[in-house]
């Protein structure tokens, strides 16, 4: 009951940014939601599967590029280009999944990093295909059912719909039998194997699902910016989304969203004053790893529990 009230409050809270007085704030709220979908997709792998991917920007970026390419170079309508982007990127995630899941642990980290680097190489160097450093633009925003999304508020609500679907999906996914099995393969892969659970397939399916949601985030990213450049595929971007997941709390539902909000806000606020965002990103990384390895959401939860306990004792 209390939980339902919390969710209702959160839902109401999410509608509020649409009516903020300045487009600037509405746009930041949109960025947070897109980053939230993206971080939520990575959380499936990192938090629930125990598989640290350092190449997740690859799926977001590939999807954004495919959308841009299909609509500007191949003449697809925005809807079909978006569907094509998500489909092709999900297929790519399946191929990358087969390659990456040859290893776990550190090997997995390095292979995902290297694979994403290939995509960056294509985007940056294969100029005739991808426009190189100039990127691709000119595909505009979609017009679902004829609704114009050029205003910040309309676009925010559009993103909110996808955000809600992805959040519901992730909540159901991790609480399902499959999700429980996934967490089992994270904690005790050998025991799960002994119990007859197909560990590899579980990880593979999660990898593909994670790629799918990153692709959805990629389409929204492209729609929001109406522009893609190789920067979206850079290692910094993969690191940023991993930081969101870990800073917020890997393996929690709300963690990645809190992480996304913190990182997006930090980035926007900091870039308004100084240009040293990457330096700050590095420092935050080091600080989180050393002082709050479990992330903000579990960390705050722990603090809260402690205060409650000392409160009753007193």
């Amino acid at each position: 009951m209390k939980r339902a009230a919390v969710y209702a409050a959160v839902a109401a809270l999410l509608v509020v940014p649409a009516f903020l007085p300045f487009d600037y704030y509405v746009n930041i709220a949109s960025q947070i939601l897109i980053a939230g979908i993206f971080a939520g997709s990575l959380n499936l792998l990192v938090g629930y599967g125990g598989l640290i991917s350092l190449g997740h920007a690859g799926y977001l970026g590939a999807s954004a590029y495919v959308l841009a390419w299909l609509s500007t170079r191949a003449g697809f309508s925005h809807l079909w280009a978006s569907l094509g982007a998500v489909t092709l990127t999900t297929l790519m995630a399946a191929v990358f999944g087969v390659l990456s899941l040859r290893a776990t642990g550190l090997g997995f980290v390095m292979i995902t990093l290297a694979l994403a680097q290939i995509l960056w190489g294509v985007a940056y160097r294969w100029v005739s295909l991808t426009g190189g450093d100039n990127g691709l633009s000119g595909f505009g925003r979609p017009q679902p059912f004829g609704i114009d999304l050029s205003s910040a508020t309309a676009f925010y609500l559009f993103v909110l719909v996808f955000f809600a679907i992805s959040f519901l999906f992730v909540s159901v996914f991790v609480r399902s039998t499959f999700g429980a099995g996934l967490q089992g393969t994270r904690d005790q892969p050998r025991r799960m194997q002994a119990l007859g659970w197909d560990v590899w397939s579980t990880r593979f399916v999660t990898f593909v699902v994670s790629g799918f949601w990153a692709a959805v985030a990629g389409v929204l990213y492209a729609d929001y910016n109406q522009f893609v450049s190789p920067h979206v595929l850079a290692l910094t971007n993969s690191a940023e989304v991993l930081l969101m997941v870990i800073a917020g709390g890997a393996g929690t539902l709300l963690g990645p969203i809190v992480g996304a909000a913190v990182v997006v806000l930090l980035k926007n606020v900091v870039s308004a004053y100084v240009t040293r965002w990457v330096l700050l990103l590095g420092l935050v990384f080091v600080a989180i790893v050393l002082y709050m390895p479990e992330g903000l959401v579990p960390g705050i939860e722990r603090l809260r529990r402690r205060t409650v306990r000392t409160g009753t004792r007193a």
Partner: protein
Amino acid sequence: MRFFLIQSLNGLALGGLLFLLSSGFSLIFGLMRVANLAHGAFFMLGAYVGLSALRAGLNFFWAVLAGGLAIAILGGFTERFLLRRLAGKTLAQVLITLGIAFIIGDASLLVWSGDPMPLPIPQALSGAVPVAGIFFPKYRLAVVVISVVVFVVLWLALERTRIGAMIRAGVDDMEMARGLGIAVPRLFTIVFCAGAALAGMGGVLGGPILSVYPGLDMDMLPLALIVLILGGAGNLLGAFAGSYFIGFLYTFGQALLPDLAYVILFLPMVAALALRPQGLFRLRAA
């Protein structure tokens, strides 16, 4: 033929630089199970330190030493005060080296600005020598020679010295090595400092060929990764062969298919991953 010969020599020079970069990366990974994502940043920072040393009037030899020493000290601090606190936590170690890489990268941009800067070639090594009918820059030949010397020295150090034997024992079976009373933490510091020093010196030596620019770190890191995946973790000979192979592949790729050179670089890695279902070397056990 002429084209082939020139590109081969260029490939050799790049391979030599890659070996300086990836030998340390591979030994650190093999021994400590740490993927040091700051290794590319070490390489770049070494080059910048070398540049400043040259500007301060030191000659090239001392600039190389200064780059190596500065990065060895930085590596020592990283290992002793950050990585050791996180011993056994693989993810935390990867993340912290990534954080360090970003800090070094952005701080270098702040200090040395964003313009690409080539390091001047030392006087004694400027000019070209005739090789099989063509003229080839002396400096690049020198880089090849240096990398081979470093390989031989490292190989002898690993195979013929007591510390080398301890390192090999640690790479093969860490628990057993500990059980035999080998002081593993000290070994970690030695290997990490040595690997960092090699990267730093490699950066200075690479300066006249590659120039030094913001982004050099993230250009070099994936190359070290590929060499590691192809050559095997902690395998010096593998790192040597892998470095030269990648050096050739990249040089010829650049010359023949510039659009796709970067992608071609990764194909052997993808093929190796696809064709070796049992996992590559010891990556799976990591």
